[in-house]
C-alpha cells in the first residue's frame, strides 16, 4: 500500500488550495497600497503585509465548533467577533470588556455573566461552586463596581449525586456571604445522562459603580505600569494536576477568591491613576495583556524576572512545556496604572491579604502597537502572542 506508486495517485487538499487562492486575492489588494513601504527591506515588507492580514475581518473557517473555540485564545476571539458581535452589535458590547457598564436612572450598573464547566468539579482550594460566585464577582469588580446580586443557573446531568450538589451549593452560599452578594434568582435544568458532564453552572451578576472611575482596556498609555496582584498560574496548574492524568503530586491549591475588596483598596489609594483592570482567567496574563495592547494600540513590555510564579507552579509548567503566562488564575488581577502612581498602587495592593505577592511586571510603550514583548530571564527578547489553541482541558 505504501510504495512509490503512491506518488502517482496524489490528490489535492481542497481547503488548502482554496486558502492559498483567497490569500493571493487579498494580498494583491494590499499590494496596491505600498505607500511609504519602498524603503523597507524584503523581510520588512513581508512582515508589514502580515500585520495587515492580521487586522482583516474575523471569519470562522471551521465548519464545526472545535475545542479550540473555547480556549480563550485566538479561535475564541474569532468566534466572538465573527458570530456573536456581528449579530448582537451595539456600543456596550463592542467595548468587549468582561462586563457591560449601564447608565440607568443616574446610577451606573455593571452587568456580567459567566458559565462554569470545570472538570473535576472539586479540586484543591475550591470547587465549581465558589468558582462560579467568585468569577462573576470578579468580573463585576474589574469595572470598579461593588458586586450586589447574582443569579445561578444549574445544568445537571441525570445521575449526578445530590450530596455533591449540596456540597457545591453550600460552597456557593459561603462564597456569596464572603463576597457580600446575594443569589436572588436562578434556574435548574436536568439533561439525560451523557448529555452533560455532571454539573454546569451559569451565574450572572449586577453591581453598582459608586466611584467616578472609568476603566477600560482601551485606556492604556505609554509610561503606564503593569501590575499583577500575586503569583500567577496557581488555578490552572491545580486543575491540571487534579485531573490526575499527569501523575504529579503537589501541594498547590487554586487561587480562587473574590477581588472586589482588593480593587476597592487599590482605587482608594489611587483614585485617578488606574486605567484598566482585568482578572487573569482563561488564557492567563498573556492573553489579557494582548487584549489591552490591541485595544489601546500600545506595546506592553513585560520583564520575565519580575513575574511572580510559585516554584511549584513553575515546576509543573516546566515539565508540561507550558508558559505560566498563559495559565489561568481565578483570584489574580492585572492592573494598568499611571506610571507616576505605580508604587502607591503596589503598596496598596500589598497591604491587602489577597495582594501580598503583587509586583510591577512591566510597562506600556508606544511601539510596536498591539504587541506584547517579553524580556526573558535569560536576557533575550521575544513576542508573547495570543494563544492559538490550548491543548488543555476545561479549567473554569
Amino acid at each position, binding site marked *: 500500500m505504501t510504495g512509490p506508486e*503512491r506518488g502517482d*495517485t496524489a*490528490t489535492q487538499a481542497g481547503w*488548502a488550495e482554496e486558502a492559498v487562492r483567497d490569500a493571493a486575492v487579498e494580498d494583491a489588494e494590499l499590494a496596491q497600497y505600498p505607500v511609504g513601504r519602498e524603503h523597507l527591506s524584503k*523581510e520588512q515588507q513581508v*512582515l508589514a503585509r502580515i500585520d495587515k492580514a492580521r487586522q482583516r475581518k474575523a471569519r470562522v473557517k471551521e465548519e464545526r465548533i472545535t475545542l479550540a473555540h473555547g480556549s480563550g485564545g485566538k479561535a475564541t476571539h474569532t468566534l466572538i467577533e465573527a458570530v456573536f458581535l456581528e449579530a448582537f452589535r451595539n456600543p456596550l458590547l463592542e467595548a468587549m470588556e468582561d462586563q457591560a457598564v449601564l447608565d440607568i436612572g443616574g446610577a451606573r450598573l455593571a452587568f456580567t455573566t459567566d458559565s462554569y464547566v470545570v472538570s473535576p468539579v472539586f479540586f484543591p482550594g475550591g470547587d465549581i461552586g465558589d468558582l462560579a460566585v467568585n468569577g462573576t464577582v470578579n468580573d463585576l469588580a474589574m469595572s470598579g463596581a461593588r458586586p450586589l446580586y447574582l443569579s445561578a443557573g444549574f445544568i445537571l446531568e441525570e445521575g449526578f449525586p445530590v450530596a455533591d450538589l449540596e456540597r457545591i451549593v453550600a460552597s456557593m452560599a459561603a462564597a456569596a456571604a464572603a463576597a457580600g452578594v446575594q443569589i436572588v434568582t436562578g434556574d435548574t435544568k436536568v439533561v439525560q445522562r451523557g448529555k452533560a458532564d455532571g454539573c454546569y453552572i451559569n451565574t450572572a451578576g449586577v453591581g453598582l459603580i459608586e466611584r467616578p472611575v472609568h476603566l477600560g482596556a482601551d485606556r492604556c498609555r505609554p509610561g503606564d505600569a503593569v501590575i499583577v496582584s500575586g503569583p500567577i498560574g496557581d488555578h490552572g496548574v491545580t486543575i491540571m494536576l487534579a485531573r490526575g*492524568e*499527569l501523575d504529579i503530586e503537589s501541594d498547590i491549591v487554586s487561587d480562587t477568591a473574590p477581588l472586589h475588596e482588593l480593587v476597592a483598596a487599590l482605587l482608594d489609594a489611587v483614585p485617578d491613576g488606574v486605567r484598566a483592570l482585568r482578572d487573569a482567567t482563561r488564557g492567563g496574563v498573556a492573553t489579557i495583556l494582548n487584549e489591552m495592547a490591541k485595544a489601546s494600540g500600545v506595546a506592553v513590555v513585560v520583564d520575565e524576572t519580575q513575574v511572580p510564579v510559585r516554584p511549584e507552579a513553575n515546576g509543573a509548567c516546566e515539565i508540561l512545556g507550558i508558559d505560566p503566562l498563559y495559565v489561568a488564575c481565578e483570584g489574580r488581577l492585572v492592573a494598568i496604572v499611571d506610571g507616576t502612581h505605580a508604587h502607591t498602587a503596589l503598596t496598596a495592593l500589598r497591604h491587602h491579604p489577597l495582594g501580598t505577592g503583587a509586583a510591577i511586571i512591566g510597562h506600556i510603550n508606544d511601539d510596536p502597537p498591539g504587541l506584547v514583548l517579553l524580556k526573558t530571564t*535569560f536576557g533575550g527578547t521575544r513576542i508573547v502572542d495570543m494563544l492559538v489553541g490550548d491543548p488543555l482541558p476545561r479549567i473554569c
Partner: protein
Amino acid sequence: MRFVDEFRDAEKARVLSAQIASMCVPGREYKFMEVCGGHTHTIYKHGLEDYLPEAVRLVHGPGCPVCVIPMGRLDDAIAIAEEPDVIMTTFGDMMRVPGGRGSFFDSKAKGADIRMVYSPLDSLKIAQQNPDKRVVFMAIGFETTAPSSAMTVLRAKALGLSNFSIFCNHVTIIPAIKAILDSPDLRLDGFLGPGHVSTVIGCRPYEFISAVHGKPLVCAGFEPLDILQSVYMIMRQLQEGRSEVENQYRRVVPWDGNVKALEVINEVMELRPYFEWRGLGFISHSALKVRDAYAAFDAERIFEVPGVRVADPKACQCGEVLKGVIKPWECKVFGTACTPETPIGTCMVSSEGACAAYYNFGRFTRERVREAAG
C-alpha cells in the same frame, strides 16, 4: 528552580556570546542548522538570537516530528479514528495538524472519539478500561519516542490485550540529515545535533557528517546555555580547522546511546523501505513499521486505510523551510494564507515548527523589538 536556572544564567550567556563574537572571521557568514524542533523552540522562547552576532545564523531543521508527517498519513489516521468502536489516542500537538480533509480536531468535532494522552501508556490504560473498544495510539516521533511506543506494544502483549494497536509513524533522524546534506542548494557550516534523539542512538551515527561531509556536529542540550555553548564549540572547531562529532549534552547523552532502548525498538519495529516526509518527499529507510511478529498490534494491518497520497499545495514551501533553503518569511504563503490559526504547512502547526516559532516570536525585526523592550 534547580537544574533549570543554572542553564539560563544571563551572565554566563554574555561571556559565551562575547567569545563567539570574537571568533567570527570578519566578512564571513556562519550558517548552522539546529536539527531538532526542541532547539528551535528554546531559541525563540528565550530570545537567544539576541546573543548571537549578525554573522552567525541558525537554520531550523527537519526535527519536528509533527511537522514531517505527510497529509496522506494523517488522512489514514483519521480514517482509522472514524471506524466504529475506535478510540484514537494522540499527543496534543497532533490535534491541529491538517490533513487533506481536516484535522483530528475537526474529526473529533464530527463525532470521532479522539483523546489526548501524555504517554502511550495512558492509551494502554484506556484500552484496559474499554475492553469493548478498539484503542489506537497515533505513534509519532524520532528515536526519542519510538522506545516508549515499542515498550507499550510489549506491555500490551504481556497483558494479553487484543484491543490495542499503534499506528506507527516513527521516523529516523539520520536519513533526514543525509537528505539535507545531499541537497545541492544548501550551504551549511555545521550542525547542532538533536540531544533527545541522541540519548537513544548516541553520537556515533553522526560520524559520517564530520568524516564524509566535513561538517562539525555538536550534540546539544535544550536549555539556552546548552545551545550557546554548542555554537561556541562548533565555532572553535571551525577556528581550529577540525570537523568532529562532539557531545555538549554529556549530562544526558551517552556516547554509545541507550542500548536497551535500541533493543526494544528493534524487537518490535523494523525499517520501512521508504517513507514520505512532508516537504522532503520519499526518503528510503527513514521510518519504522511494526514487525510481523507484532502484527496483532499494528493498526495498519488491522484497519483498512485509504493510503492515498495528498500533494502539498504548490504554494507551500515547507520543504525548503525544513531544508533551511529559505527562511520562513520567504515562503509565499507565510503569514497570509498560512497562519498558526489556519496552518497549511505543518511547519506552522506545532509551536516547534520553524514557521510557527518565527510567526509567534520572530515576526518583528530584532532591532525594533530590542529597541522597544529597552
